[in-house]
């Protein structure tokens, strides 16, 4: 299966106005993100409703580590910045610079996951596991699923970074934008998870 077939943008005509002129990957990624909003939206909704029903879960929530989470928030927001800077560099034809920012994004993502494991480790050591009750069930599922999405993004970005360093990289450059969209989405999910689980 040749690589050329897959990344050659398929086009067939002008019907569709702006949509026909949009890179296919952008449209496809937005559809995918729409479905992902439903997954996290459901978890956020059910968590919030259950929390109201349970009276706030204040005792349980006192044991989450808001400091690590705040640090992670900074990390993730910065990684969104580096993705945008990578895209900007790609537009300006500065591929090496684009790759560097991509790598930075990956590293920041790894820092996020590293801090997250630290956080989980501490909590589990104190006896707070997914089996510790409804709050912890939601906490671990929401942050865990989010973490899996971060991991997926890291893997995809690593593969892109590798591909951009090889011959034929021009065809892969548009993917910086598409993976960027995914990465920003993961950031936006965290923007909501952080206050919901750690702050309010």
């Amino acid at each position, binding site marked *: 299966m040749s690589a050329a077939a897959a990344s050659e943008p398929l086009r067939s005509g002008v019907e569709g*106005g*702006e*949509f026909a002129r*949009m*890179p296919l990957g952008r449209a496809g990624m*937005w*559809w995918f*993100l*729409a*479905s992902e*909003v*439903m997954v996290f*939206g*459901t978890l*956020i*909704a*059910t968590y*919030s*409703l*259950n929390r*109201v*029903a349970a009276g*706030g879960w204040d005792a349980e929530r006192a044991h989450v580590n808001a400091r690590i989470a*705040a640090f992670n*928030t*900074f990390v993730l*927001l*910065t990684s*969104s*910045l580096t*993705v*945008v*800077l990578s*895209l*900007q560099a790609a*537009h300006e034809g500065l591929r090496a610079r684009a790759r560097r920012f991509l790598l930075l994004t990956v590293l920041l993502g790894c820092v996020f996951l590293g801090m997250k494991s630290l956080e989980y480790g501490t909590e589990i050591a104190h006896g707070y596991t997914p089996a510790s009750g409804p709050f912890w069930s939601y906490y671990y599922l929401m942050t865990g699923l989010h973490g899996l999405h971060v991991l997926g993004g890291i893997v995809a970005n690593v593969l892109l970074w590798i591909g951009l360093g090889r011959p034929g990289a021009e065809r892969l450059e548009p993917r910086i*934008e598409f993976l*960027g*969209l995914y990465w*920003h*989405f993961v*950031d*936006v999910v965290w*923007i*909501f998870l*952080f*206050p919901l689980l750690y*702050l*309010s």
Partner: protein
Amino acid sequence: MQDPAHSGPTPVTIWVWLLVLVVAGLVLLFFEEMSHTTITILLMAIAAVKATLVLRHYMHLKAQPAMLYVIAFTPVLLAVVMALILIPDVAYR
């Protein structure tokens, strides 16, 4: 394709605003006399502003055709509808 640096704030500017908003959210917690509900609402509002910044300026939503807004926001609306309908059953068990 559009260059985000051309029109509007630079990515770094947006990043600074995002960090400011994160700090603002953390600062809110020091206002202990505020009720739980008020803090939650304010935090969600701040989160919404942050999300809007990322969506508009990092994901370039403002440069896209209107239909893309529909694709992006319909699931949000749907999730809200789901949450509202579930209130009688889940929030008041």
